[in-house]
């Protein structure tokens, strides 16, 4: 069996040739097996979100290769890569279309990677299916199928975005600090839903987080990034036995103590 995701020596520099030049990814290498759920931690500007954006194709990479389940996607535009990916963003506003209803948003997600034609945008059968899926969330959204998403709270929108990401089973689920903008209680709920969706669908997933405890508790693998590189990669029993102070020690080792003031400490 091949890997579900292969990142080979990916480089990305922003604003080349200007005073704002910034090396964001400096030779990232990573291989994920099917069913891997990897959490990604690191300081600000370490390249965590940039890695997910490189996979999603928000911009082209300067160098390197991205392969999803054997398909080279390095040169595909963002909307074509979407066929392989489910994405949830840090900002709850980004994952859904505010002026459209819950069911319309879900119907759009259900057609990810398919040709969109002049068939009606949503069918009766779909509606029943969405109702069932929403009910599982336990947020009462199954009664509000035709409500505009813009009327919902950030947590509700994030939960719907998660459902949408898994509606059409993706090869890879990208969670980009998707609980960072939520209050602690809602964040915990959204994380719980994430675990459930990943587990039930057997998804391969990557989750960027600023919360070290979450990074340890969730998933089967953990990587730490620093200055555009992966500096630490653990999985299995070793990961399970990690503590927050172990991770902090790793950080300091990698960065020479500069993390002392980083907001990671707040986690």
């Amino acid at each position: 069996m091949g890997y579900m995701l292969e990142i080979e020596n990916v480089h990305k520099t922003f604003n080349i040739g200007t005073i704002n030049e910034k090396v964001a990814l400096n030779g990232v290498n990573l291989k994920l097996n099917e069913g891997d759920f990897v959490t990604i931690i690191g300081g600000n500007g370490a390249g965590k979100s940039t890695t997910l954006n490189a996979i999603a194709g928000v911009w082209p990479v300067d160098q390197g290769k991205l392969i999803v389940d054997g398909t080279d996607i390095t040169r595909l535009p963002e909307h074509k890569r979407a066929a392989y990916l489910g994405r949830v963003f840090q900002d709850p506003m980004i994952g859904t279309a505010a002026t459209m209803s819950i069911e319309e948003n879900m119907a759009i997600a259900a057609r990810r990677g398919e040709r969109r034609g002049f068939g009606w945008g949503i069918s009766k059968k779909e509606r029943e299916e969405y109702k069932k899926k929403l009910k599982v969330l336990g947020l009462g959204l199954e009664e509000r199928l035709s409500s505009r998403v813009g009327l919902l709270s950030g947590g509700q929108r994030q939960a719907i975005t998660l459902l949408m990401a898994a509606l059409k089973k993706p090869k890879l689920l990208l969670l980009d600090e998707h609980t960072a903008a939520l209050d602690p209680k809602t964040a915990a709920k959204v994380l719980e839903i994430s675990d459930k969706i990943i587990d039930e669908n057997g998804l391969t997933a990557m989750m960027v987080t600023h919360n070290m405890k979450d990074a340890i508790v969730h998933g089967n693998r953990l990587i730490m990034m620093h200055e555009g590189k992966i500096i630490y990669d653990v999985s299995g029993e070793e990961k399970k036995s990690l503590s927050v102070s172990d991770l902090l020690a790793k950080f300091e080792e990698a960065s020479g103590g500069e993390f002392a003031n980083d907001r990671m400490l707040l986690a």
Partner: protein
Amino acid sequence: MIINYLSSLDPTALLRALPGNVAQGLIWGIMALGVYITFRILDFADLTVDGSLATGGAVAVMLIKGGMHPAVALIFAFLAGLAAGFITGMLHTAFGIPGILASILTQIALYSINLGIMGKSNQSIGIAQQNLVASLRYVTADDREIFFLKLILGCLLLVAFVYWVFGTEIGSAIRATGCNPQMARAQGINTNFTKVAALMFSNGLVGLCGGIYAQYQGSADVNAGRGAIVIGLAAVIISEVIFGKLCSGKRFSFAYTLSAVFVGAILYYVAYTLVLWLRMPSDYMKLFSAIVVACFLAIPYLKEKHAVKRRMAK
């Protein structure tokens, strides 16, 4: 003096002008429907309209002069509008030119193209032309009720068509693009394609409107579209301010919203006539149009600001 002025105003003149206002409003409402698609659904300020409206008229009039049936000529007016929208869309998506600028470039280019189509700045088909889809003379004819009935029916059919288009998978993709392009791309929507498609559809309707309006007037003019976007925006915004609450939250609310655009266009022409009736010099009519649109655009913003202030004060 004031008494002299007031007594010189003839209320029956207003009433007499009403059928013409309604006809004009319904015809321009077709353009406003196109403006609604770009301005509200795609969130794109498309100024191509000023050019593509005249293009639709020029194409229709030249084809009718060449012997084509006026109704068939409208198909070509629609196609010409599609082409205009395609150019703006490509300038924006394939060449990365900002939306407003891309549409201004097309608009300017169309001025020359429209002159080229017509050979001169104005071409007339004459009021006696047979089989016209719409005409000033129908408004005063004995059987004008039938004309109005047909016109209203035609507009409702267009509303139904636009309603259907935006209910389909492609239409939903266009709506998502206008609302949240990041989400659209993450869900596999090619936002460049949807933008071009929406611009084409919108300008197709504008070209159709231009073709009908040229028949109504009996001539096509290279300046016919000057300021058309403002009239379109006026119709859209008037309809939203007056009917916005009435239309929302219902089944088929989108169809009501689209129909309200036509009422907005009619109201615009009624107001227009009212101002002329008050003997304001017609030179100032563009100023009047601009003020109307500016006011109606400002109202929702100022209302919100005021509401925030009041909440803060509490």
